[in-house]
């Protein structure tokens, strides 16, 4: 009996130690994100140095400063908007969980949920696509391609601005598609009679 207790305590201790040593997914995920953020930051700084070198022919200091400011703003805006889209996708995911939860309860009550299951599967796929799109966008660094000619400066910088605008609009459409897919699943569930009620014993 004593041996069994000793072996059990030993086994439990090893299991706990192993559990503590295994990194969780969230830890790995956050360190990867941090690494990606640092890499992106180094790229931004490298491209800033390139931009400064290309602008040596520009005499107007105010214009130079404006170009640098736009360069910084463009990349910060990309970071802020992709962060916002990630938060929105987290909320959409949470809404889909609620729909799934409601569907399970309706199914347990003997209701036919066959119209909802394909909508949920579709929503999951659209959310995954949107997430991939946001991640790709978040990794992008926008450079200002200038020849150093003051007369073409506005159009050159404008191209960078347009590129970010077009990319963010495209990502936003994917996030909206994810929201619409979850909404569609919720509507399909709402159309089932008594989907919002729960059966109680008489």
């Amino acid at each position: 009996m004593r041996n069994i207790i000793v072996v059990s305590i030993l086994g439990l201790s090893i299991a706990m130690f192993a559990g503590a040593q295994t990194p969780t997914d969230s830890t790995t995920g956050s360190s990867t994100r941090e690494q990606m953020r640092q890499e992106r930051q180094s790229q931004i700084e490298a491209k800033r140095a390139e931009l400064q070198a290309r602008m040596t022919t520009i005499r107007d200091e105010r214009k130079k400063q404006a170009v640098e400011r736009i360069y910084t703003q463009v990349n910060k805006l990309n970071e802020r908007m992709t962060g916002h889209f990630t938060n929105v996708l987290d909320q959409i995911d949470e809404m889909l969980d609620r729909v799934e939860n409601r569907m399970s309860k309706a199914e347990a009550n003997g209701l036919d949920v066959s119209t909802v299951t394909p909508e949920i599967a579709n929503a999951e796929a659209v959310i995954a696509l949107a997430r991939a799109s946001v991640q790709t966008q978040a990794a992008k660094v926008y450079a200002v391609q200038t020849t150093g000619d003051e007369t073409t400066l506005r159009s050159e910088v404008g191209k960078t601005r347009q590129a970010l605008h077009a990319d963010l609009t495209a990502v936003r459409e994917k996030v909206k598609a994810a929201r619409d897919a979850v909404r569609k699943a919720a509507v399909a569930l709402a159309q089932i009679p008594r989907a919002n009620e729960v059966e109680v014993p008489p």
Partner: protein
Amino acid sequence: MNKNIIIAIIVLVILVLGGVWWVRSNKGSNYVPLQPNDTTGMIIQDADALDMGDIDKEFQDIDKDLQTL
């Protein structure tokens, strides 16, 4: 046995059987609404209220600087 007692017993038996039948036929049909935040209506409402961000508004500062070039 008194005729009235027999009739009373028959009525009583009918009432009991009727009660049993009513309870059985209503079994499983008691539904109560779920909590308000768990309904499909609330989920749809939350989805509609999501802030997708105003991209054009976010570009205002950049556009202002762009005009100075």
